[in-house]
């Protein structure tokens, strides 16, 4: 079995190829029109003809997603420090944060446009609202999960509150924060596209991928719509890969989630 593990990376390639072949076969056998079910080839062709539009749109969406993601990371960390540091803040604020998280963003869209304005500020706000909660929840949990004997040790050795947070609680919370970031990274591009769809089409709309979804749908350019979906996936992948890299950079030397080299 051991020797075959080396070829394991081929498995998703093979399953992907099989899926595409099946797709082509279903289309050929069913006789469906291209505007109902385009073939992978037609989608690729559409992506090629629309490449300038798609890339420009992906760039704009990336800006919105990154803005919302970074805002969520910073605000999430700050809010978590508050929640983790004071019990009264935790009990006082957490239920309301949860309720905010439960509120469908689509309901808030008109209010967001009204307050943040259409275009990028609104898109960033929507992305932020969708992606900040996992960061807050995870990081708070991490700050509270510092080893009890470690806390004793800091107390015994006369650490100030600030030293305890900086040298013990924050590093303890780092893996949790990164896990939150990973969830947020999958949500941020979705949030940005959703935001563009909701609030980006108003006057001065920025024409990101969310706008293309709207526009291609109206024009019944269905292969291009599929291409937009594929580009969205790619954007999400870039976000997740960036966080995975950050996670590796910060944890691989000491954290148990990474294999030891000497094992």
């Amino acid at each position: 079995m051991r020797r075959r593990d080396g070829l394991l990376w081929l498995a998703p390639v093979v399953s992907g190829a099989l899926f595409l072949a099946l797709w082509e076969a279903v289309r050929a056998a069913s006789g469906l029109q291209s505007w109902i079910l385009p073939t992978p080839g037609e989608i690729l062709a559409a992506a090629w003809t629309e490449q300038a539009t798609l890339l420009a749109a992906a760039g704009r969406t990336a800006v919105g997603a990154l803005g919302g993601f970074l805002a969520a990371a910073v605000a999430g960390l700050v809010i978590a420090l508050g929640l983790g540091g004071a019990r009264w803040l935790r009990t006082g604020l957490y239920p309301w944060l949860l309720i905010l998280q439960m509120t469908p963003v689509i309901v808030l869209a008109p209010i967001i446009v009204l307050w943040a304005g259409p275009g990028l500020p609104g898109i960033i706000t929507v992305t932020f609202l969708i992606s900040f909660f996992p960061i807050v929840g995870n990081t708070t949990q991490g700050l509270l999960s510092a080893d009890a004997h470690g806390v004793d040790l800091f107390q015994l050795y006369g650490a100030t509150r600030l030293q305890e947070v900086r040298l013990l609680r924050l590093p303890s919370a780092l893996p949790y924060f990164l896990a939150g970031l990973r969830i947020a990274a999958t949500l941020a591009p979705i949030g940005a596209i959703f935001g563009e769809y909701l609030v980006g089409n108003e006057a001065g709309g920025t024409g990101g991928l969310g706008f293309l979804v709207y526009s291609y749908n109206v024009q019944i350019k269905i292969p291009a719509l599929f291409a937009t979906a594929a580009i969205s996936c790619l954007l999400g992948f870039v976000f997740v890969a960036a966080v995975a890299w950050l996670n590796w950079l910060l944890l691989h030397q000491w954290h148990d989630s990474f294999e030891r080299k000497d094992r």
Partner: protein
Amino acid sequence: MPDQPPIVQFRAVDKRFGDGPPVLAGIDFDVAAGEFVSLIGPSGCGKSTLLRLASALSPATSGEVRVDGTTPARAREHLAYVFQEPTLLPWLTAARNVELPLRLRGVPAAERQARARGLLALVRLGGAAAYYPRQLSGGMKMRVSIARALSREPRILLLDEPFGALDEITRNHLNEELLGWRAKAPFTALFVTHSVAEAVFLSSRILVMAANPGRIHAAVPVAFPYPRDAALREQPAYFAKVAEVSHLLHAAEGAAA
């Protein structure tokens, strides 16, 4: 120094958590400077709680605890604690872990690095300074943990079953070395253990405790002179002392009502 006051003093100390039954009752003992006192007793006799009282991690319910002539909280400056688990910060290298207490005190980086190097050499881990805790064995982690405690140059070292999780061979080695480190950096030791053999090997005095409520059942002086080495474990007098303490420990367990 004539009539030096005891460095640790428990006077009629009771401890209970909330409305629960007493964990410790009528604890009364002194530790003189330079002594190595072990606390031994059945699980739940409050040995660890006693160390927590001595270090102000937990307050006594009644009675008085004095350390170094003052309250436990004020005496902390001269005290270090070794927990049952090594309690190393996993994101710091061995050297940075040893430096930690000095860092908390605001000792300049160059000075604390030099001292950490010296301490790691003392515990024979000079080559492992850059290793992270997960790269170290259980025994090595405990060496780092003790080096970290010694970085404070403590007058009093509290040790809560530090070698309980180690195999007997490693434990024996660490017992011998602990006495060696104490000869180089003298400290008074209050040592909690489950092992009679370990207590006899290390201590100048053993306090045998009984449970429900936790109390001191007997105090046994151990007169073997220091320095002690592995050869002590082969002497009849050592066996006799182990037998004596084991007998008292059984009696203490019988006394638990």
